[in-house]
């Protein structure tokens, strides 16, 4: 009895530690956003975890009035949505065919596609910049819309393969016996059952594009075309002056919605990854 209580206590203690560890950056960003310069830089003796002087909204004013922050967010959204649409359109049929039609080769191809994802962008951005120039997309959001699917599609295809394989072939064949063509069966039975996987892919592709940095930095220089990851860092770090409070605020405003969506789909997300792991063994 005592031993069990002790175990439960230990579990909660560890969970609390972990929560503090993961939530701390958010808290730090939040509190920093509303601190004035004087408190942040000069008041060294005071406790940094609380407000010692009155909080201020000046930093957010700077972020919204003196930078293109809203444009960056809009640009990130535009790129994110376009990349998500392209990724879903390509990865869903690709993963279905690899899971169902290609037999043993399907699995090998799936792993090979996943390998593509492992090539780091720091190697790829040089040849990619040539392609972007050739297409005449330099300094345009379209460069990112064209380039980002090169890493979202392979990964999402591999991820969806696990989901597709978990849908019993029987159910699909039953739909074909029940009066539908293969395409009809896919549309009415396979897609609805793969929906959790497709949602995982949507969330994953979107976050992957919003936190991408190297391609965004290499292909876009005009402020009005920048996305959030490059825009905030280039406009709020001027020479060696860091506008820490505004940077924290900019990060926090986009991180919170994404964190909420992640939590909403957490179970699906884990299921997606483990399924992929089994098929990619």
């Amino acid at each position, binding site marked *: 009895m005592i031993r069990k209580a002790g175990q439960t206590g230990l579990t909660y203690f560890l969970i609390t530690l972990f929560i503090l560890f993961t939530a701390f950056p958010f808290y730090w960003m939040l509190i920093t956003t509303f601190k004035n310069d004087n408190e942040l830089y000069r008041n060294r003796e005071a406790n940094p975890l609380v407000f010692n002087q009155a909080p201020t909204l000046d930093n957010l004013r700077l972020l919204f009035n003196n930078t293109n922050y809203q444009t960056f967010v809009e640009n990130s959204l535009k790129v994110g949505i376009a990349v998500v649409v392209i990724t879903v359109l390509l990865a869903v049929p690709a993963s279905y065919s690899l899971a169902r039609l290609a037999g043993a080769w399907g699995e090998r191809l799936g792993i090979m596609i996943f390998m593509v994802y492992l090539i780091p962008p720091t190697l790829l951005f040089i040849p990619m910049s040539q392609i972007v120039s050739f297409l005449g997309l330099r300094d345009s959001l379209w460069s990112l819309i064209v380039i980002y699917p090169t890493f979202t599609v392979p990964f999402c295809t591999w991820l969806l393969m696990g989901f597709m394989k978990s849908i*019993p072939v*029987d*159910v699909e*064949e*039953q*739909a*074909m*016996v*029940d*009066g*539908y*063509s293969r395409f*009809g069966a896919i549309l*009415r*039975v396979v897609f*609805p*059952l793969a929906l959790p996987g497709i949602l995982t892919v949507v969330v994953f592709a979107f976050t992957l594009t919003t936190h991408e940095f190297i391609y965004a930095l290499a292909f876009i220089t005009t402020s009005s075309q920048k996305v959030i990851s490059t825009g905030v860092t280039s406009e709020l770090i001027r020479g060696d002056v860091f506008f820490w409070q505004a940077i924290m605020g900019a990060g926090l405003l986009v991180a919170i919605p994404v964190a909420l969506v992640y939590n909403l789909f957490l179970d699906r997300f884990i299921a997606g990854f483990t399924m992929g792991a089994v098929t990619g063994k």
Partner: protein
Amino acid sequence: MAVVEIRQLYKAFGEVNAVNDVNLTIQEGEFLVLLGPSGSGKTSLLRMIAGLEKPTGGEIRIGGVVVNELPPRARKIAMVFQSYALYPHMTVYNNIAFPLRSVGMDRINIQTRVERAAKMFNIYHLLQRKPRQLSGGERQRVALARAVVREPDVFLLDEPLSNLDAKLRALARDELKQFQRQIGVTTVYVTHDQVEAMGMGDRVVVMNYGRVQQIGTPQALYRAPANTFVATFLGSPPMNLVEQDNCIIGFHPEHFLPKGIDQHMQSPITIPFEVTRVEYLGSERFLYGYVQGVGERTRVVSNIPSLVQLAIEAGRTYDFVADLHDLSYFDKMSGDRIAPVRLQIAQAAGV
């Protein structure tokens, strides 16, 4: 309703011939069972009739029409998979309505038909549930309701009872057979369970290694198996086989009885039986042991109904009898059934 004809059907998966030269005519309204061990080609044959698998050679006709090139949806068939393959994201109502929507039937007609099918299978109260909220037996009924709702020409059933527990299976067997009689649709039923096959089939097709071993009524198959494979696949326990010279002699355990209760036998022969183990099963007793008067010393089983009270102990040898008319004879090389041969029975010492 339709006649299904299968002519010289082949199916090869790489080097392996899963179905090898099968010829079969399934009569209108017949309940035909495909029986065989796993890998015997029975499921491949069923899937070819359904159109889920393309034959390597041969012809399949349903209602006189060659359907080789037709997709499953154009064959007027309904199939129940071993897993039932219910659509997990749809309610029971939508599961049953699914095949009707494919032909563009109007809403009111669909509702009438779904409700009629649901009442027929006693699942009307489950219509708004999802498959995961149903028991195994209920799922099976939903799968059957979905199969009948389209009023198909042919029913294809792939081991539909194998996921049910033993008690429910006996009940479901009876219900399924009654229901098939009632609607009279040509039915092909795949199973590896010989009890199901014997109990339900109008005719049974025994398959092994992709080939048809024997086609006939359950009685004909049991009385006169075409070869040693059929002989040992049917019956529980199966037929005893004893080698003698160039032939194999077969007799069913229940036709091998202690001397003294053989009044009904026309021409009994006496064979000494060394009993090694007695298994009491309530309605019957299984006696395991060896016979050595006929050919080589061979392990056999005798099945005595519990009505026979005779005391029999393990470790002793008794005189047992079999009727000459109940014996089957097989060729030792090919295993095929042959005409009766003259028996040589040596009396063992010490009887």
